[in-house]
């Protein structure tokens, strides 16, 4: 049982550590992707025998690395907790991720389409008469206040109402606030996926007899992602445009 725990820890460490799998294979902790007991040939240097440890050595190394892995994970968690800028926000490792959606201009885009730009991600919908237009307008005003720095930011408006918010509707909607805002929609599954990745809650609640009579409760939060697509921080949607602009300016200037 303890050995199982070490193995789990090692597996977790290998999977989530920033180093490639090869690093671990090179020290013979992890076997290659080939069949059990044989190292995959393309992962070792040509003509070189894989070093084989005695079971005792291997076990000792596992114990050591398991402890190291746990320590490293703890350290990472502490660093993350320390630099987490807003209390109550989720772990930096947990927000955002890959997505495939349809942009308001009809293009199919993924998270990778926006690499190189800071992202300000907001989830809402066009039937929302109060908070969404207020927030989008705040974003537009914040961009205005940022001047040339705004060129480094792409605001994304992801609909939580894909049934009604077609690319055409979204295109007209976001343009009313600022042409730099990109509207994103998709299939209900794609929207559910991206919402899950961003830890966004959304739920329809009916307001009448017709199937179309509904509003959507949703998380109203701005997510800041860096040019590599990594989550940076949350900004409350209740912040004023000046505060949003100041926060973005600070984050962008810190990074460069």
């Amino acid at each position, binding site marked *: 049982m303890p050995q199982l725990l070490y193995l789990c820890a090692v597996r977790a460490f290998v999977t989530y550590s920033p180093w490639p799998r090869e690093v671990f294979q090179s020290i013979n902790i992890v076997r290659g992707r080939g069949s059990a007991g044989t190292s995959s040939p393309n992962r070792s240097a040509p003509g070189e025998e894989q070093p084989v440890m005695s079971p005792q050595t291997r076990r000792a190394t596992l114990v050591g690395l398991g402890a190291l892995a746990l320590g490293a994970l703890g350290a990472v968690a502490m660093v993350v907790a320390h630099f987490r800028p807003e209390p109550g926000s989720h772990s930096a490792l947990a927000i955002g991720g890959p997505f495939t959606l349809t942009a308001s201009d009809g293009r199919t885009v993924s998270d990778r389409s926006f690499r190189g730009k800071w992202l300000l991600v907001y989830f809402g919908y066009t039937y929302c008469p*109060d*908070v969404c*237009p207020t927030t989008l307008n705040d974003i537009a*005003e914040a961009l205005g206040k940022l001047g040339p720095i705004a060129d480094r930011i792409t605001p994304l408006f992801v609909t939580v109402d894909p049934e009604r918010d077609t690319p055409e509707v979204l295109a007209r*909607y976001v343009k009313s606030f600022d042409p730099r805002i990109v509207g994103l929609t998709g299939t209900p599954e794609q929207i559910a996926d991206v919402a899950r990745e961003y830890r966004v809650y959304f739920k329809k609640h009916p307001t009448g007899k017709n199937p179309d009579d509904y509003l959507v*409760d*949703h*998380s*109203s939060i701005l997510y800041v992602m860096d040019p590599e697509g990594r989550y940076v921080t949350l900004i409350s949607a209740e912040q004023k445009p000046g505060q949003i602009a100041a926060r973005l300016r600070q984050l962008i200037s810190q990074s460069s």
Partner: protein
Amino acid sequence: MKTDIMKALIIALSLALSLASVATAHGQTTSASTIEIMAPWARATPGGATNGAAYMTILNKGKEADRLVAVSTTVAETAAMHRSETENGVMKMLAVDAVDVRGGSQAVFKPGGYHVMLMDLKQPLVEGQSFPMTLTFEKAGKITVTVKVQKIGAADDEMGHMQQDMGGMKSE
């Protein structure tokens, strides 16, 4: 002698009548003037949107509490009182049956809070235009206001300077 009595009677009657009319007039004045609707406005409709929201400040200058019980307008299929509420980062819109305005206080309808939700607008609201909206109060009765359509970018704090603007308010 008879004429004196007649005169007295006439004077008495006219006095009574005028008193009665003063009383009636006073009643109307009370209901019309205790509630003031300040700076009613709505955001211009963004492209593609079919819903809108109207905002205002309801001032109750009287001593007694009053209650806004209904809203109606011709620009949308339905108008209803709503309240946006953000709790733990989740925004919900809740239907509100009535809004109480205590005597000597005010109820503020503003973005992110209370608003008159305009559902299924017959046509987009255009900046610079205005439209009538009728508010029904339990005591003050119906008050029709002229709602001004502001630019999409209008924020609530920009509306502060309009607080004194009573234009468009009239009672039915």
